[in-house]
């Protein structure tokens, strides 16, 4: 905490002499084509200062392309990028002054850790005494002070990652860009680094754009998540909004709605929506008005549980069951052949019949054509 506040105060004191800052970053109809492939089409997005924004999506959705366009490593094919009232998409990467953390870290293999971190400052002709002081500060921040004189090849993956972060933030960039920075680390280290990144972001009060395909990472790190699909924005919202109320089926898929069951929509006199599946009926909340009567019910495995009530739920036979510590995780199949992932507090026999039901509030109904 102490360290974080001191970093913040030095930043504030330096803000006057040249440290550029901004209020908002705007992407206006940004487009990027690779030959005939549209990696990004019509990306419009505004990011406020101080936010931690995650660009989330499956591979090939355009999230890394978007980041590279913001960084200036890829020219945009159309549209514009603005930092307040300054247009920046026409500027080269070295003129934008954003800090970037690469997926493979991209540390200079022939420079020591300290030289790597100081590189951006040397390029800015900062006096060497100040370089030394700021590099020392950055090394303390990422807890690598004793490794200053090592070459990157002598460090572990997690340490290299922290050098890459220190190198990007030591220039005090108005915007930090991170391209799947944790994807090369093992699961335990990934959790540790997640906290580290969050801590550094909070300490510096910088704006961060973070690209990931891991929804857990996005949910735990970001203030705002932008879900991309096929080069377009699917949904923008806080982690809670996306987790609780995904607007599209593919966003729901990303947010852990593993069961997607096709059925027909039925309504009662009070306007409640039900989905008819293999003769069974389950109640849910409608996410979008369906065009026809074919809909898809999305339910998380955690919310689909066995019930004794014979008037409720979907009938299925258990195919597999596995122990997950606090509960059991099961796979069942309906007579029509649909797979259902569910959870159970007790072990159930394979092959046994089961009725699976969910709280109507946890069942989302999407138009089948939306998929």
């Amino acid at each position: 905490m102490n360290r974080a506040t001191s970093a913040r105060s030095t930043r504030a004191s330096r803000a006057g002499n040249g440290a550029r800052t901004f209020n908002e970053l705007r992407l206006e109809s940004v487009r990027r084509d690779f030959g005939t492939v549209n990696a990004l089409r019509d990306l419009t997005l505004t990011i406020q200062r101080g936010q931690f924004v995650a660009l989330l999506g499956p591979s090939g959705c355009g999230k890394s392309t978007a980041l590279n366009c913001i960084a200036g490593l890829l020219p945009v094919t159309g549209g514009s990028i603005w930092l307040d009232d300054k247009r920046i998409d026409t500027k080269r990467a070295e003129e934008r002054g954003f800090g970037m953390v690469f997926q493979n870290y991209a540390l200079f293999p022939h420079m020591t850790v300290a030289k790597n971190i100081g590189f951006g400052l040397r390029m800015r002709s900062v006096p060497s005494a100040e370089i030394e002081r700021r590099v020392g500060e950055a090394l303390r921040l990422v807890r690598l002070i004793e490794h200053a004189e090592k070459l990157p090849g002598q460090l572990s993956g997690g340490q290299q990652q922290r050098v890459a972060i220190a190198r990007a933030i030591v220039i005090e960039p108005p915007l930090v860009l991170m391209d799947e920075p944790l994807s090369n680390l093992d699961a335990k280290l990934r959790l540790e680094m997640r906290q580290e990144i969050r801590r550094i972001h909070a300490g510096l009060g910088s704006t961060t754009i973070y690209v990931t395909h891991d929804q857990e990472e996005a949910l735990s790190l970001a203030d705002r998540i932008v879900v991309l699909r096929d080069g377009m924005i699917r949904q923008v919202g806080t982690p809670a909004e996306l987790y609780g109320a995904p607007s599209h089926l593919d966003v729901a898929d990303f947010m852990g709605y593993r069961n997607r069951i096709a059925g027909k929509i039925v309504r009662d006199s009070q306007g409640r929506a039900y989905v008819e599946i293999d003769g069974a009926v389950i109640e849910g909340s409608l996410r979008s008005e369906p065009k026809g009567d074919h809909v898809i019910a999305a339910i998380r495995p955690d919310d689909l549980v066995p019930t004794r009530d014979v008037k409720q739920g979907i009938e299925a036979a258990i195919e597999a069951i596995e122990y997950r510590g606090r509960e059991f995780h099961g796979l069942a199949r309906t007579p029509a052949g649909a797979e259902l992932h569910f959870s159970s507090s007790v072990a159930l026999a394979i092959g046994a019949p089961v009725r699976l039901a969910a709280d109507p509030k946890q069942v989302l109904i999407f138009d089948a054509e939306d998929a």
Partner: protein
Amino acid sequence: MSTLASSSARLEDAAPSWRLRFAAMGLDGVTLLLLPAALFLVALFIYPFLYGFVLSFEPKQGGMFANYARFFSDPFFANTIATTMKIAVPVTILNLALAIPIAFRVRLLRRQRLLTTFLVLPITLGTVLVAEGMLFYFGPQGWFNRSLIALGLISHPVRLVHNYWGVLISLVITGFPFTFLLTLSYITGIDPSLEQAAATLGAKPAARFRHIFWPLLLPGLAITFCLSFVQAYSVFPSAVLVGEPAAATRVISIAAYQSAFEDYDYSMASAIAMIMAATQLVVVLIVFAGRALVYRGPVSSGKG
């Protein structure tokens, strides 16, 4: 299940066969595949080299070192070292100086293979064909001189064949493709994200070259220099065909050739060949000593 376990346990207890023990040392059936190459090396390199080495100490007249003494006391022989260096060193530097910027541009091209094929074409021509072409093209009545005169840039034809410049040009033409290919492979081996990282940190193109590419390229360039230099140092056909083999381009290989096939003094020729090898080795060692002082590790960032 239990029988399987016990039988494998018994296998582990038994001493490994001689075959396994040799395999552990890296000697197995596959090792035999090296045999033809090893025989080839012994028959066509090591034996002739040793034969020549011994022969050089058995001069026609005088003591053991008479050939070497004669070489270094007679300027007609001794000067060939300087003459050859004066050709080989500038040619090698020139080839590298041309190859680096071109390779830098070519690495970014999408149709890299087409241009590379085009640039490498001279390697297939052979020295003699290049020399023939040069005699016509650069001759006093050649296109080169006629074009320059027509453009009013010169009033008299410049002499570019049958002298030092002829050999230099010829060696650049035939040596460039090799230097270029090697340089290109070293440059493309450098992780492109390093340059991107440098750019996001504020390094302009010149600074990116100086701080990132150059230091990472240097060890590779040292090797390229050595290989190109050795090729240029053993110049023979172009020194005769487009050079001035009696004076300005009397390179060391010409001296060896004359001793062997004009004076029929094989012992002297062997001594010259040994001196040639030794002088090349000195240059290569100097370059490698310099290379030992710079960073020689991997040229990509640690993991990824």
